[in-house]
């Protein structure tokens, strides 16, 4: 991998981390008055996947969408404003953190109902097929969403119609506070489920952005060629609480030491190490810090939406 690609991957990972940390830090000011599901610890997934997507490729996401939005190039000012409930938000403040979207960048939206964007993403791919567009559709979801029936219905449909879709299952081992062992049989095998539905399946270490990037690069090429919908499962881990700005290891729903183990696999630290060139990194981070800081300033200074906008929507 050339240095530039590596540096770009670093930048995305860093940007996500820094944005999430800032949200976490400022949340207690009670100005971001909406649920937030942070992606700290999971940055490599979004970064390594989206780095292979073109601007007009499409993504769709879930309640935990900050990383996907940032990695796909969503406007940062609009994102932070949305979380602050301001009219400069990407959804004019209507949706908050769980409804990020930036159509110009192919970010179709995200919703907080687990699994529900999966068929919607498949529908976008169906549109692309019928209208002969070459955009790839990437659908992000957690491993919890694979327990919803609609996931299975959707992959069957996608395979039946050879839709060019990359399904990204971000396996962070937990659904809210509930571990896998309470939700799925021990020998559960997503690979077999996918292959039984005629989907290609891959797995990768979701904390190594370079590995993710390379694996997805290959996969994306293949999907674009043969239209076989493909699922990649990426193993990763959420550091903070499921919803909210805080650490919560004190709640003891995760085995002691587990979080520590995963922090050692920190995706940011890892890519940093792989780059080595310190001045390069510090130049990049400085620039990003500025961008991020100014997004928060922008959001805070923005106005709240006026109630008049409601009449622009259909009810």
């Amino acid at each position, binding site marked *: 991998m050339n240095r530039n690609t590596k540096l770009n991957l670093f930048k995305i990972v860093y940007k996500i981390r820094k944005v999430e940390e800032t949200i976490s830090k400022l949340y207690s000011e009670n100005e971001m008055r909406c649920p937030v599901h942070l992606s700290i610890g999971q940055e490599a997934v979004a970064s390594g996947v989206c780095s292979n997507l073109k601007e007009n490729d499409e993504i*769709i996401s879930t309640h935990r969408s900050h990383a996907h939005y940032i990695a796909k190039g969503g406007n940062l000012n609009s994102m932070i404003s949305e979380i602050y409930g301001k009219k400069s938000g*990407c*959804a*004019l403040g*209507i*949706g908050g953190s769980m*409804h990020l*979207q930036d*159509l110009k960048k192919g970010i*179709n*939206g995200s*919703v907080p*109902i687990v699994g*529900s*964007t*999966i*068929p*919607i*993403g*498949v*529908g*976008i*791919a*169906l*549109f*692309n*097929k*019928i*209208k002969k567009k070459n955009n790839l559709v990437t659908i992000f979801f957690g491993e919890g969403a694979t327990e919803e*029936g*609609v996931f299975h*219905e*959707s992959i*069957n*449909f996608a395979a*039946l119609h050879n839709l060019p879709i990359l399904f990204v299952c971000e396996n962070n081992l937990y659904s809210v506070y509930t571990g896998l062992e309470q939700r799925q049989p021990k020998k559960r095998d997503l690979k077999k489920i996918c292959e039984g539905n005629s989907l290609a399946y891959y797995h990768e270490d979701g904390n190594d952005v370079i590995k993710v990037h390379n694996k997805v690069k290959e996969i994306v090429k293949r999907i674009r060629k043969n239209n076989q919908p493909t699922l990649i499962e990426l193993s990763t881990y959420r550091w903070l609480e499921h919803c909210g700005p805080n650490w919560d290891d004190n709640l003891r729903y995760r085995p002691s030491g587990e979080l520590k183990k995963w922090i050692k696999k920190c995706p940011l630290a890892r890519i940093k190490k792989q780059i080595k060139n310190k001045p390069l990194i510090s130049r990049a981070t400085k620039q990003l810090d500025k961008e991020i800081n100014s997004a928060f300033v922008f959001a805070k200074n923005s106005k709240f939406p006026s109630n008049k*906008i409601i009449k*622009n*929507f*259909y*009810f």
Partner: protein
Amino acid sequence: MKEIKFSEAILEAIDQSMQKDKSVILMGLGITDPKSIFGTTKGLLKKYGVKRVIETPTSENAVTGIALGASIKGLKPIITHQRVEFALLSMEQIINQIAKWNFMSAGKQSVPLVIRMIIGKGWGQGPQHSQSLEVLFSHIPGLKVVAPSNASDAKSLLMTSIKEKHPVIFFEHRWLHDIKGKIENKKEVKIGKAKIIKKGKDLTIVSFSEALIQVMRIYNFLKMNNVSAEIIDLRSLRPLDEKTIIKSVSKTGKIIVIDNGWTKYGIASEIISMVVEKGFKFLKSPPKKIGIENISISSSRTLAEKTYLNSKQIIHNIFKIINKNIDKKKLNEFIKKNENDHTDIPYQDFRGPF
């Protein structure tokens, strides 16, 4: 003006819409099969091909989400459910996603999507194939709900619904499918406009869909008895044409609503509550709603017939509202002459099963 069946009107509406607009696609179980949803999708596969006429797996929830995804990008999907009950599997997509997508996208995307829901009834369909459930959708901001009662309205309303920028739930009662009607091609029926079927001054009768057919069956008896009823066909349930209803009540002072479905927390409840809130001063007697019994529908015809609307009940309630006595002999004669032998079929030659 030609006379065609309600089902043919649906077919014409879809066919002409697909002809005119390449974005229109069809999705559903059975749309390409030999029965082609009571004939309403007949020949479309051949004409428009598999890319636009998409037979689906038994995956109602995903199919609905897929249609939503396709619609926000610019396709205009029409989904068909052979029974309303199957659509219950897709309520999450309909209520949380489809109804709200225009809002959630801050107006940047809209959902030009039509979901056809067919109400079953008769021939022993039983409890899970004969529910109406219009109110489940009519309650939801972001949805439009229509339920035409005749071929002409069906055709025009379906074409309007397909052209419409926002999602429309389109109710078809299967007992309407075989009824012929003249097609008035001139006027486009707008969503949200009721129609006064009969002018009158003694009372206002509000109805829609197949229930309206039941009302029309007894119209002659009202005339014979010099009851001047103003009959309104709602056509749209959401938005509701409040003006037309209130105007009629302002004249008659009396209202009865004849509902397709259950009356508790039903369609009729909203209409009556709206009338009484906005037209209280016009009301001369208590308004009344009737619909099917608030119980599930049995398969056995002797039980089913007690559940459904029936002419006698409608007539009795109307006469009560206008405070008039009924000549029982006349009534029985009328009923005998005009009713089917069996209430589990709409016409003598109707056969089940599906």
